[in-house]
């Protein structure tokens, strides 16, 4: 059944699952770029209500398992919950095995939680290109909490920073000592630290390493908590839930955050837009921006030409 973008947008706003699913498919696919954009434009006014929770951390620490349990508990408090999980795609074949779902499968169906798996499509940074749009669709559809799971993250996969209100960095015992804990990157973006697998040896040492490193950092009003979890018997989950809700409330109080988020959104849209346009350039259309023939003749270097072109479009940076 083919629907118009307007029908799909209406369905999304009404919370219809099939429309939500289809909308995410359309924003994910370059073949339907125009339709996808149309949908986003018509639902955007209804976004901005959801609390967006990012869960990131290295592969295998239990992010998906944590999300399954957390989503279930949030649902239990009467919230409408959706999950987006990103898994890595192959740099060789572009294929992927989207395995996050298996870890939370039993809770999803039982509790009626919407969950969507996306492959990273070669994006580095921990998210896929269309993650922002997928979040917007779910936000407009009336979900109160949207949990975004990044690809198993390395030290510098920080895309989630601009998107989520609250970022929980999940770690497990045995990943490193106090030297790891004071490194830059991933360790700096957390609003909450999670140490999962508290039943394992060294778990309390891992907690202590993070706490010690936080003690060295001048903190603002928000004191970053370190929460220990045992995902087998659900120890610590009440504490995590409380910390997340407290942080969401804290972020909402700040009048700066909405403008800053919108700045991030426009910046991401600009990047997507310029990538599109640059990819669409041909020899002849570039000739409208610079005189390629004379550039070649005069042996002008490519940076000078690129700077001239972008200056004429975006203005001077400095």
């Amino acid at each position: 059944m083919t629907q118009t973008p307007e029908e799909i947008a209406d369905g999304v706003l009404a919370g219809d699952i099939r429309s939500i699913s289809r909308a995410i498919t359309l924003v994910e696919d370059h073949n339907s770029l125009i339709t996808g954009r149309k949908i986003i434009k018509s639902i955007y006014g209804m976004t901005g209500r959801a609390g967006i929770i990012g869960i990131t951390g290295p592969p295998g620490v239990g992010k998906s398992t944590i999300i399954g349990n957390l989503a279930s508990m949030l649902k239990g408090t009467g919230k409408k919950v959706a999950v987006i999980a990103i898994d890595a795609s192959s740099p060789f074949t572009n294929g992927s095995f989207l395995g996050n779902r298996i870890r939370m499968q039993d809770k999803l169906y039982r509790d009626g939680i919407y969950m969507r798996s996306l492959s990273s499509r070669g994006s580095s940074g921990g998210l896929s290109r269309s993650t922002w749009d997928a979040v917007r669709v779910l936000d407009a559809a009336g979900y109160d909490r949207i949990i975004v799971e990044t690809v198993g993250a390395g030290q510098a996969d920080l895309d989630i920073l601009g998107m989520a209100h609250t970022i929980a960095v999940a770690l497990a015992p045995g990943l490193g000592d106090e030297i790891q804990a004071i490194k830059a990157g991933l360790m700096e973006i957390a609003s909450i630290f999670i140490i999962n697998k508290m039943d394992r040896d060294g778990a309390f040492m891992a907690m202590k390493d993070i706490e010690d490193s936080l003690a060295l950092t001048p903190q603002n009003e928000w004191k970053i908590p370190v929460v220990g979890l045992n995902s087998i018997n659900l120890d610590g989950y009440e504490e995590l839930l409380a910390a997340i809700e407290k942080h969401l409330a804290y972020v909402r109080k700040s009048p700066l955050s909405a403008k800053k988020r919108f700045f991030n959104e426009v910046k991401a849209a600009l990047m997507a837009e310029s990538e599109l346009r640059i990819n669409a350039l041909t020899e002849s259309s570039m000739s409208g921006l610079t005189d390629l023939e004379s550039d070649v003749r005069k042996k002008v270097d490519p940076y000078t030409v690129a700077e001239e072109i972008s200056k004429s479009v975006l203005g001077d940076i400095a």
Partner: protein
Amino acid sequence: MAAGKNLSLFKDKPVKVLLAKPGIDGHDRGMFVLAKAFRDAGMDVLYAGLLPTPEEVVDTAINEDVDVIALSLLNGAHLVVFKKVADLMKKRGIDDIAIVGGGTIPDADKPKLEKLGITGNYGPGTPLKTIIEHIIMRAEEARSRKLGIA
């Protein structure tokens, strides 16, 4: 439409396939072989995990908006369980997600499954290439419908 005619359809967003063994059948080794082969063929692969119900499979397929559901059973219950999946899809009015089957399916049952729209129905020993080509072919139909270019 033959496989491979319209592969540009999947250039940006690969074929998305859900592997599932609905019903009481825990023989998942073959599923892992297929999952890996499909991934290496450039698809986005989901696996429904052990012992999902037909309802869970359909729910997952809709949430994920897959192109193809690939069902497999080795326990002889395919006529009941595959049919249940096809019926649930029909009941929810979904015509843009294709269903294919496989497992230990007697030749006599294949036409019955085809009648329900469940194609392929390959048995043990089928070359992976045959299965992959069939999935791509069915995915082309499904994706074209999703994008409204059928």
